[in-house]
């Protein structure tokens, strides 16, 4: 009756091994980066930052190791109870890491919001696992898997919704993403790169493992619900990222967006499984997993670069930065590679996985009948919109932070970060390029993994023509070869350079920027991030509800001394969803305080009334 004692603690099937690989791909460079991050020479005197005492550094290493181990345990747990325990330990350790510099008031609040939201998510998970336990009387995955076939459909739908909310809070799907932009930036950079790169992926692992593998998809509205949520996450994530000026918060919002893209792949594959189109299901899950590993790599890279910028200049606000490319050339190059990857520009890995997801949408649309065709088409176009907005956001992020003249003396005093940090970044940048070019090989690997998870036999499905060319649908003439693309681009670039070299004899003259002839161009008249994102703020004002206040400070009636311009966007979800909810709970609690006013007579009356009531309704019990 009581077989709580798990027979099998850990299982290493292809899905688990894949996620282990993702974890270690990002954790290794972050650990190397951490060596530099904590070394004293990393922070020049100009930058004001909480310096870390040796005790704190060893504590951070200890927490980092436990954090990685707990994530590894989460993805390889074989028993739902063990999964739950290790899941909570992971959240607990990451709470300690978010609240690492305990004197900053912001990080305490961020940590509190983070652990509370994660815990509420886990409560939903507990409910889902227990309802599965009720039918299976065991927690082992395989036994659960067979028992779940016999669960009645409406219970299955309820379990699915509970799992979706539980894992959704951890993944940061839109209505539940509130904690992500607060928690990730507060942690030390190498930790936020692991958190953003890998920890939110454990939630995706959870969805794949429990919904696709254990529960089994049999109603098609599941896939559509995930698609809709994913789309909203994409758009909201990228729009808020555009309005953000704190570099790490910008990257955190992009994690929300990219989780949306990954979930598009996963949602599509669930939709196709329910329509039993095996080829498309495998293909879209491959697209989802591929974007998952790509995002882990380039998001990790971007957070490490943001960390180096923070270390070098002491501030994360891009309005105060600028011209860092001359002072920190290598960090700038790595950030550029990361930015290109996340904006899905051709030769790199972001482009390949986004192209695969779009292909999955199109191929799905061709196969599916009726109105769903249009739905998939519109989804594809919204995904393209997200790609475009992401490119705009990273032009802003890279351009304002690294290019042109430094806007503050912090930025002027910046200097290149130590070797360890650069090594970490170099490793990830290299991976970004490799994962982009060797797409065909990775497709074969991912095919085997998705086959094992969805239980679909993939022997006759060829996804790549040879080691270089991807072929989503045999015989349809759709090909993509990132390696060839890179080759052609380089060739044409060299050709262009040759033409440039041959035609002109004189060398280029260096002179200052065109200043309309009469005033000296300095950092003040460069374009700022707020200005850069203004057109999009106007375009999406129906959602952002921007607030704008301009003020003229006048010396006298005729002379204006200075002009202030203040604008910010209203955080819709926090203002209209979370604050009213918390306010309601607090008001109810305050109301309940009145039952303890201090008078002993009232307390005695409570006891007396309880006795009377219980006696009167005795027979009801």
């Amino acid at each position, binding site marked *: 009756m009581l077989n709580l004692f798990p027979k099998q603690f850990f299982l290493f099937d292809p899905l688990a091994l894949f996620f282990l690989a993702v974890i270690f791909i990002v954790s290794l460079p972050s650990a190397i980066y951490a060596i530099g991050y904590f070394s004293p020479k990393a922070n020049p005197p100009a930058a004001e930052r909480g310096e870390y005492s040796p005790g704190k550094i060893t504590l951070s290493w200890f927490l980092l190791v436990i954090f990685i181990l707990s994530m590894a345990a989460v993805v390889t747990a074989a028993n739902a109870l063990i999964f739950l325990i290790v899941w909570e330990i992971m959240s607990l350790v990451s709470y300690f890491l978010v609240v690492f510099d305990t004197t900053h008031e912001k990080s305490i609040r961020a940590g509190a919001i983070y652990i509370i939201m994660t815990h509420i998510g886990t409560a939903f998970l507990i409910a889902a696992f227990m309802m599965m336990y009720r039918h299976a009387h065991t927690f082992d995955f395989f036994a659960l898997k067979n028992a779940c076939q016999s669960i009645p459909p409406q219970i299955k739908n309820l379990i699915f919704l509970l799992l979706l909310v539980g894992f959704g809070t951890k993944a940061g799907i839109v209505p539940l993403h509130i904690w992500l932009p607060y928690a990730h930036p507060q942690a030390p950079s190498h930790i936020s790169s692991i958190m953003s790169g890998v920890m939110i992926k454990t939630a995706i692992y959870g969805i794949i493992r429990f919904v696709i593998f254990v529960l089994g998809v049999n109603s098609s509205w599941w896939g559509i619900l995930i698609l809709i949520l994913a789309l909203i996450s994409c758009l909201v994530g990228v729009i808020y990222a555009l309005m953000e000026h704190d570099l790490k918060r910008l990257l955190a919002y992009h994690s929300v967006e990219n989780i949306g893209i990954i979930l598009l792949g996963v949602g599509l594959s669930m939709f196709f499984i329910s329509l039993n189109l095996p080829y498309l299901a495998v293909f879209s899950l491959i697209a989802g997993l591929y974007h998952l590993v790509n995002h882990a790599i380039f998001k990790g890279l971007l957070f490490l670069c943001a960390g180096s910028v923070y270390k070098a200049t002491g501030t994360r606000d891009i309005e105060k930065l600028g011209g860092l*490319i001359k002072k920190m050339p290598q960090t700038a190059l790595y950030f550029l590679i990361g930015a290109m990857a996340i904006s899905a520009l051709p030769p790199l890995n972001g482009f390949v996985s986004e192209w695969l997801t779009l292909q999955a949408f199109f191929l799905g649309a061709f196969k599916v009948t009726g109105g769903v065709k249009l739905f998939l088409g519109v989804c594809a176009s919204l995904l393209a919109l997200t790609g475009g907005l992401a490119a*705009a956001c990273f032009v802003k992020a890279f351009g304002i932070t690294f290019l042109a*003249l430094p806007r503050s003396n912090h930025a002027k005093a910046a200097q290149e970060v130590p070797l360890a940090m650069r090594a970490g970044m170099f490793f990830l940048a290299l991976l970004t390029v490799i994962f982009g070019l060797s797409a065909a090989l990775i497709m074969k690997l991912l095919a085997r993994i998705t086959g094992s998870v969805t239980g679909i036999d993939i022997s006759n499905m060829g996804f790549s023509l040879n080691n270089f060319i991807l072929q989503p649908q045999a015989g349809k003439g*759709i090909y993509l070869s990132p390696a*060839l693309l890179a080759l052609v681009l380089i060739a044409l670039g060299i050709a262009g350079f040759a033409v440039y070299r041959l035609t002109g004899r004189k060398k280029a003259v260096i002179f200052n920027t065109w200043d309309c002839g009469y005033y000296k*161009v300095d950092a003040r008249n460069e*374009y700022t991030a707020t200005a850069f994102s203004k057109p*999009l703020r106007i375009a999406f004002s129906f959602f952002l509800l921007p607030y704008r206040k301009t003020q003229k400070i006048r010396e006298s009636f005729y002379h204006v001394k200075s002009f202030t311009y203040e604008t910010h966007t209203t955080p819709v979800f926090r203002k209209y969803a979370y604050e009213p909810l918390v306010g309601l709970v607090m008001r109810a609690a305050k109301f309940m305080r009145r039952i303890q006013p201090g008078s002993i007579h009232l307390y005695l009356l409570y006891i007396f009334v309880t006795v009377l009531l219980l006696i009167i309704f005795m027979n009801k019990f």
Partner: protein
Amino acid sequence: MNKIFFILIQLVFFIAVAPLLSGLISKIKNSLRMRKGQSILQPYYNLAKLFSKGEVVSATASWVFRITPFIVIASTLCAASLIPVFIFPASLNYLGDFLALIFILALGRFFLALAGLDTGSSFGGMGSSREMFISSLVEPVLCLVIFSVSLRSGSTSLAAFSAVGAAPVTFIIAGAALFLITLAETSRIPVDNQETHLELTMVHEAMILEYSGRSLALIEMASYVKQMIFFLLIAQIVFPVSLPVSVNPLQVIFWAIWFLARLAIVAISVAVVEVSVAKMRLFRVADFLGFAFVLGIIAGICAILGV
């Protein structure tokens, strides 16, 4: 080996014909305005002049500014090599398909915007901000156009959708949507004005304000080629003609004439629109592209209905 030879021919053809198109459009615009205007070959003269002039590079600019012209020309020519013009039966489509085309063009635009920011002048920042704003709203419409056009043939490869039979309504509406996008992408009047340097109106020009001499020539060449790519796509969608099967000379000549005629028609229609429409306020462009998006959806619906 002959595939590479054909590609080189195609690139040379693009480089040769592209400036002619711009010349043609400006010629038509001026004649509509009852003015003599510059000659059709003026773009060639400009390019020749630029290639021989010296170059001035801003002090604040970094290596991004220096490398951008080459990336822009490379990405645009790579996109051009994808289009099925000369190469029979299939173009160099192992490289990618219609979807990949969008991303390749996005690469060029990304670096151009960065270069705009790199010089530190407010014109460059203004240009790249507007450019990214417009292009991010263009991509969904492009995606919808591809969706509606490739729905019939069942594959997004560029060669495929031209080979399939006529679906007049879908292709007309998709062509119209693509036409609106072309106006936005190639900085034509309703969205952006090529000729003026007035900071209120220029978008594309503002980004390349700091460029001079040979780099400017390369970038100008790239924008001409991009313009030709879009014109070719519109032409292929609105007047679908399958590639000639046999190689007998008569048919090839007729096909070539018809090919250039389609290009001219599109160029004329662009010129007519440029003359008859006033430039829009920047924030109205969002509604303009919203209208294009709706057109795209209607095209999608028609494609689904198979009409």
